[in-house]
């Protein structure tokens, strides 16, 4: 008898009852973005749920910078890339060093530093934005991209150090002793033993910091102001400055902006999920 029992049908129906709303809920705003991006201006504004003539015209306009909102599209794309990559690399350097010093070298006061970092991680970033904005002004860094990079490293490091420390504490202490007996210096231990063993965490944290910087809005729009200096994210926000914004171009630009982080996220999803759960749910 291959007939499904009444009970099976019931379970399946219950699953679908949740699954269908979940599908619509997750996809509709994204579909709406795609719909506008591939619709000629009039079609989307008339409320068509699918354009009669899908077009790539909007993307061409974006890539050729043929609208005054898009005058700096490529520059802003480059800015976003530079800032995200620099944040990722710097965070990795700062955080692996700190975690190694705390977890393996047992540096004095390491525990206090870890607690301070953790505390910083829990304080909402938006509350640090205004004081940070003022002090960046005092330091003379305002409107320099280095200000945004340093701010993002500041925000990303605490979590990065925490994840590294958790992973690092799991490595057996005998490794270090063996390395020292063989005459290795702490730096060699770091380079030859620690870093190779920490590779999965390095990937997860590097991507975390990179995406954090790429996706940031508040700090980017506070710390940078010139249209040619800002990130693409702030460029998108600037579309809102007028009521007659070209939505189809905004949505096309938004898709181009959203694609790289989404691709990175989905490629490294396995690392991200395990990295995040290791960090965020200890306990």
């Amino acid at each position: 008898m291959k007939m499904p029992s009444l009970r099976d049908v019931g379970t399946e129906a219950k699953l679908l009852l949740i699954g269908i709303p979940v599908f619509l809920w997750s996809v509709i705003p994204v579909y709406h973005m795609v719909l506008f991006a591939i619709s000629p201006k009039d079609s989307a504004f008339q409320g068509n749920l699918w354009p009669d003539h899908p077009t790539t015209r909007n993307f061409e306009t974006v890539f050729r910078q043929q609208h005054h909102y898009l005058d700096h599209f490529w520059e802003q794309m480059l800015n976003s890339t530079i800032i995200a990559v620099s944040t990722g690399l710097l965070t990795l350097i700062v955080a692996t060093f700190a975690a190694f010093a705390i977890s393996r070298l047992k540096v004095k006061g390491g525990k206090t530093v870890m607690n301070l970092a953790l505390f910083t991680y829990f304080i909402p970033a938006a509350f640090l934005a205004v004081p940070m904005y003022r002090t960046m002004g005092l330091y003379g860094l305002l409107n320099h991209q280095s200000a945004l990079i340093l701010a993002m490293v500041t925000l990303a490091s605490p979590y990065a150090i925490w994840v590294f420390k958790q992973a690092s504490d799991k490595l057996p202490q005998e490794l270090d002793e063996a390395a020292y007996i063989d005459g290795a210096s702490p730096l060699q231990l770091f380079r030859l033993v620690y870093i190779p063993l920490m590779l999965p965490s390095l990937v997860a944290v590097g991507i975390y910091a990179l995406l954090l910087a790429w996706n940031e809005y508040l700090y980017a729009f506070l710390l940078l102001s010139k249209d040619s200096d800002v990130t693409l994210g702030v460029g998108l926000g600037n579309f809102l400055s007028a009521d007659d914004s070209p939505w189809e171009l905004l949505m096309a630009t938004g898709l181009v902006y959203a694609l790289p982080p989404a691709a990175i996220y989905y490629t490294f999803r396995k690392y991200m999920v395990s990295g995040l759960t290791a960090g965020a749910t200890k306990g």
Partner: protein
Amino acid sequence: MTVAAVDHAPSHADTNTGGTGRTDAQTWGLLMILPYILIFLIFVLYPVLYGFWIARNPQSYVKLSSDPIFWGTIRNTLIFVIVAINVKMVIALVLSGFFTAERRWVKALSVLFILPWALPSIPTILSWRFMLNPEWGIINQQIFRLTGKDGPNWLNDPSLALGFSMLVHVWKSLPFWTLILLSGRLAISKDLYEAASVDGANGWHLFRHITWPSMQQLYLTCLILSMIWTLGDFNSVYLLTGGGPADLTHVLATLGVRYLRYDQVDQSMAAIVCALPLVLPLVYILMRRLGSNASEKA
């Protein structure tokens, strides 16, 4: 003789390298932790102290509390944190159960379900904003097609606008918390469920007596963490409503920036200081929870 010498030599070398290794380790440790300490001092501690110094004048708080927007903002912030977070976490708890179902289509759906979290929030929140536009937005266009009447001006009503900000917040962060709770559920042994099912327990019993007791601590930690982070959710409000209409949908995270834009730095800082009685107790509880968990495991 030779044996003794051979025996002796390595142990001697051992203590030697061990000794220098340890002092070496402290020097190197200090050097390696220094970059983060500098970052912390320059970009966290100094700005925070500077912020408190700016906000030291009691007059700024008097000005702040006489601003009618301020009390509305406190109310909005509390509603946001209490309503949105609890709704979100309960849904996340239910959905984490849904995603344990072993079906191919459920696995496929989980990939799509992560989309709101994987995509940057700026374009997706703007997409929501356009969907809700009273004239050209797709929602009101469909309402007009179906009923021939104009739909409501969604974001022009303060309560609705705040509601939609919360909705957008839930939309964006639900996948993250669902994944976290899912990992908690997957850590529970399946044998427990099978044994209970054999004894005739129904779905509710399984949840009540197996799932919930093992997830309770995780759920509470997530709830507190999510509350703290939501206090700092700037994007869901700023990009959707801009605090409008008439500055009635601000939360503390956007209010500080609003004052900054009007060059009222002291009030901006004062508004942030006012958030501390909400933030610090939660952070304290969280750090204690994580600390005690860590020592339990050790």
